[in-house]
């Protein structure tokens, strides 16, 4: 499990870096999305991997904290996901606005000199 998770984070992050370095604004947007998955998963795995141990205290007795997933990274990531949505929206609007203003979808607002 750990190996799969680590590889997945690495591949998502690498794809994200590649896209963020590209010249077209949509590529950067895609890169930001992929990178945010990678980072969210990374923060999430700081609480280690737990299967079938959600941080719920439903029973009559409180569970032993050592046997349940850590709720803190989860709460942090939940916040991050929602804020990520907001930044994506903002970036998208900047992207189409810049395209309308400058006539190009290059991240610098003008086509590179040929």
């Amino acid at each position: 499990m750990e190996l799969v998770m680590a590889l997945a984070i690495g591949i998502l992050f690498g794809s994200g870096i590649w896209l963020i370095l590209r010249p077209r604004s949509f590529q950067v947007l895609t890169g930001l999305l992929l990178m945010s998955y990678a980072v969210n998963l990374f923060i999430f795995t700081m609480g280690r991997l737990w299967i079938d141990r959600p941080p719920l205290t439903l029973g009559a007795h409180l569970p032993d904290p050592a046997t349940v997933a850590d709720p803190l990274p989860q709460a942090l990531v939940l916040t991050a996901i929602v804020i990520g949505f907001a930044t994506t929206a903002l970036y998208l609007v900047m992207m189409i606005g810049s395209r309308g203003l400058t006539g190009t979808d290059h991240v610098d607002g003008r086509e590179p000199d040929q």
Partner: protein
Amino acid sequence: MPTLLLILVLLPFVGSAVAACMPSNARNREAILASVVTLSGLLVAVLLYLQVGNGEVVHYRATWLSAYGVDFALRMDGLAWVFVMMVLVIGLLVILYARYYMSPKDPVPRFFSFLLAFMGAMLGVVLSGNLIQLVVFWELTSLTSFLLIGYWHHRIDARRGARMAFTVTATGGLCLLSGVLILGHIVGSYDLDAVLAAGDLVRAHPWYLAVLIFIALGALTKSAQFPFHFWLPHAMAAPTPVSAYLHSATMVKAGIFLLMRLWPTLSGSQEWMWIIAGAGICTMLLGSFTAIFQHDMKGLLAYSTISHLGLITLLLGLGTPLAMVAAVFHTFNHAIFKASLFMAAGIIDHECGTRDMRILRGLYRQMPFTGTLAIVASAAMAGVPLLNGFLSKEMFFAETALVGGTEDWSMSIVAVMMGIFSVAYSLRFISVFFGKPTQTLPKMPQEPPRWMRFPIEILVVLCLVVGIAPGPSVDPTLKLAVASVLGERTPAFSLQIWHGFNVPLLKSVIALLGGITFYVLLRKYFALATRDKTPLLSRFNGAQAFETTILRLGVGASWLVKWLSTQRLQPQMLLLMVALVGIPLLLVQPLPKFAKPVIAGSDALFALMWLIGCACAVAAAWQAKYHRLAALMLVGGTGIVTSLTFLWLSAPDLALTQLMVETVTTVLILLGLRWLPPRLTPRELNIQVPHRVWLRRSRDMLVAVVGGIGMAALSYAILTRPAPQGIGDFFLLSALSEGGGSNVVNVLLVDFRGFDTMGEITVLAIVALTVYALLRRFRPAPESMAIPVQRVNDVDPVARQAPAQQANSGYLLVSGVYLRFLLPFMIIVAVYFFLRGHNLPGGGFVAGLIFAVAIIVQYMLAGTVWVESRFGLRTHLWIAYGLVIACLTGLGAFLFGYPFLTSHTARLHLPLLGEIHVPSAFFFDLGVFVTVVGTTMLILVALAHQSVRSHRLPQGVPPATQIASAPETI
């Protein structure tokens, strides 16, 4: 009594705020407000005299930054009282004068607001009982004087003068701060009483010289002392009331005040004498000599101010107690005669339209009253007997004679020279009243309004009273002020007009006669009346040097920006990414040990799932340039896998949120895709990709691969180590008992970290409004205005139908009926997830997103126009209500005496439902829910509206579509 001090300082600031809000044509009301504020201040000051007059020190103290030993402290002793009176009395007269001086066209509220704020700052400086606080007020005077000097900001000289004054004095302020910090470090306290008592300690300290230099830099820049004097003449671009106020009694006197205030601590050393007295001598001679050759009346007064300030500085630098007495006395006298002279110059400017002494002549005939007043005040400035200037100058001559003893006459010669020059420029000033009147003035001069002259009359009467009867009029006040500085060292002195024939009197006579002779000679042989430049000194232009320095700094800065920075995004991103990848690699030395990869424990299904997820991510990276829709779908695939992973790994809340965000994001980007340009692959375009592009791609690929491997390695290294003891256990154990919920993640969000969530929904709201605002100005590129290719089809009837038509009678009829039927159920699902959120996976965020998706589905089905004619979702209001609910829930805790956002669980017994728990966090979560619905919908709807805004309807749309899109035809 102590609170009176606080009132004294705060009153002008309150007045300033009120004045700023008044209408721009309320000249009288503004002036009355400012006068009332100043008069009240004066009343308070007079009341305080009851205590201060007995030699007591009034203190006011409030805790401020106790941890740093800085409290808000006000302190009034004799010296502070004298300065307070000067600030307020001259302030009152200036306000009256300004009422008549300012034109009805000037924005007067701004003027009085700045003036009152400046007055407050100045009172703050003189009343500060704490050095740090003194610096704060000090900088505040720099700032407000900047605003006042630049009041006529449409004039370039005003802007330049203001900037120069501000740069010089604020830089001095920073030096002062450094000096004060060192001083506080030496003494161990910033409290003024402690600092004043620690003079011996400070003077013996190895850092004494540093303290002295820094504090002197602060004081000398503020008081326009050589070599920083150049800003003052340029500050004359200010309206004359401002000059009269700033350069007679206040701004420039702040530096003098500081030197007096710290005199007990810093003076009495060789260094003090060289630095302070040295600067004083240079300034005094330079200022008085240059003043003679000015042709602008205010310019002459500016240089004369510089020279008088130099005189006071020199007296302070001498370091003897009697010199201190003379310094305080001259500060006081200078304020009186200089204010009246500035006002007189302002009247002449106001009435004649010019201040140029090369043109002005014979004004006495048209304005005899003003003329008489100005001549008396000039005489005071020149040091003519029976006027106040004479007395303090006499003391100055006496002190300079004492310093040199019987052998060294250099000091005395310097003093007499200054006397000669000041007589000469005083004569030059009043020369405008004599001679044959000119006919070429811009305006025909006449006497100003009665009350505009009134402040000058008061001041001139003061000159005479002090000059003729110094004993009864100023003696007690002067003794009080001097005693508060010198304490036991206060010398015995008596203010008298006649001390018998002695050296000072001889010097006065020489100065008067010499000055007259000098002036006559200059007029006769040097064409003084028409001269433009100052002889000898005109080549040393401090202002030019300043402007050149500023210019060079600007050029240097742009050079640095050009070489160290770029506006292009890609290099910046590359740097960021390289740093992100490289710096951790450099920091981790040696590399951690990795556990041997174990494949056995992995679930094959999980691995397969991520195989798909990673394939999606890599494919998206590959396709994002030429196939945006495909890339979007692929990214969505990775998102789904991420969401499933959260579910798999015991994070149901995250899985739900990720899934909903994924949905909303996809719809959002789909809405945006339309406005991007078509992009064809090089193969389609038949062009060759150049080599350097491949080179760049390889470089980026390298960074990406190294970054990916690094991230994977880091994750693996962490995942194979046991988790350290975190704070998660606390939340797990106390969620139910203290937060009243069993879903720990939700309790964390709305209770333990409620404040954080509060900030988050605020950010969401701001982003939504920003998106909305940006889109209002959105102008699409012309080529994306046309209908997308997919929708232009002659055969397919759908292409000619509006979305509403398609859903109501077209090919979407079945799904239309079905999805409209589902809407209530989807909303119930949202409500269900919201209600159970505190105990089971769900909560405000997820529920809000589900609710938003339910409505988006309707939009997608039947189009914006149809949906909004059925139910208008006032998204702005949702955002506002959501934030208000969240805030009110937080504030509710105050009612019970708890901090913001403290939660409470109420246990209610309801019929039918039985006992239920209602935590206050529930209402907070409701706020989150409402805000999330509002923001999501606002963003999406604003974007969706871009396609239907009427003026952007693409050319050539069939009329049927336009009719169909109107709601009533459906």
